[in-house]
């Protein structure tokens, strides 16, 4: 172990790296969001009954749908960039450009979805 990794939680949370850190933390937030949603979704489907109806009402809410769509879309697009660059390491030279391409895909798709979900949510 050349890497010292037994730092405290507070030190870990205070870490702010250069480029890529935003993608790193958003990838984690997206993954955690999906893991929580899917766990709750599977368990409520399994148990059914009143708990299931209550939980369904939460994720039919448009604010929650915008959040979970952010999680899925960002994790999927960022994950594709990571996968392509890691499996073809020569491309790592262009990783800054790859991040820009990634945002160029993410922003219009997500913006469009937010517009649709919010206008339905606002009663339009």
């Amino acid at each position, binding site marked *: 172990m050349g890497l010292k*990794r*037994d*730092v*405290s*939680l507070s030190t*870990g949370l205070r870490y702010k790296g250069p480029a890529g850190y935003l993608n790193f933390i958003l990838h*984690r937030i997206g*993954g*955690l969001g*999906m*893991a929580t949603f*899917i*766990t709750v979704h*599977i*368990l409520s*489907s*399994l148990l059914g009954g009143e708990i299931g109806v209550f939980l369904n009402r939460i994720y039919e809410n448009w604010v929650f749908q915008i959040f979970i769509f952010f999680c*899925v879309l960002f994790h*999927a697009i960022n*994950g*594709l960039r*990571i*996968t392509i660059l*890691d*499996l073809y*390491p*020569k491309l*790592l*030279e262009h990783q800054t450009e790859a991040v820009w391409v990634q945002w160029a895909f993410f922003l219009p798709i997500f913006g469009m979805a937010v517009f649709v979900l919010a206008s339905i949510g606002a009663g339009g």
Partner: protein
Amino acid sequence: MAQRKLSLKQRGLMNFEAQMWLFTRLSALAMYALILFALIGALVMGARNQMSLADVMRWAFMPNVTHVQSAPDVPDLAPWSSIFWKVTAIALLAVATAHGVHGLVVIADDYIASAGGRKVARLLSIIFMLGMIAAGAIVIWTS
């Protein structure tokens, strides 16, 4: 920086962590393939005229018949609830759960300072993963 550009073969994948690193990437590719497969299947079964984009995406991300029931214009749910789609859905569930639980372990490893704690988190994650695959498979199979 030169070391980061070694090919997969040159880097070697002899230990468990390196294999899980590769599994995370390959399972991501498998999920893209399964989602695309479910999307094409939906279009073949008539989604183009019978479903909204939201309903098609819900089916694509998990091809389970309960995800089609809210689409009012689908005339017959039988093709959507076939054994073929149940097996596809369980395959996607298993790949996604393994990918996701390993991701949770990676996050936990970053914040649990003691080696013993990391070992406990790993053990719990395996139990959690098997439990969620079983629960999800029951939901898919009986729906």
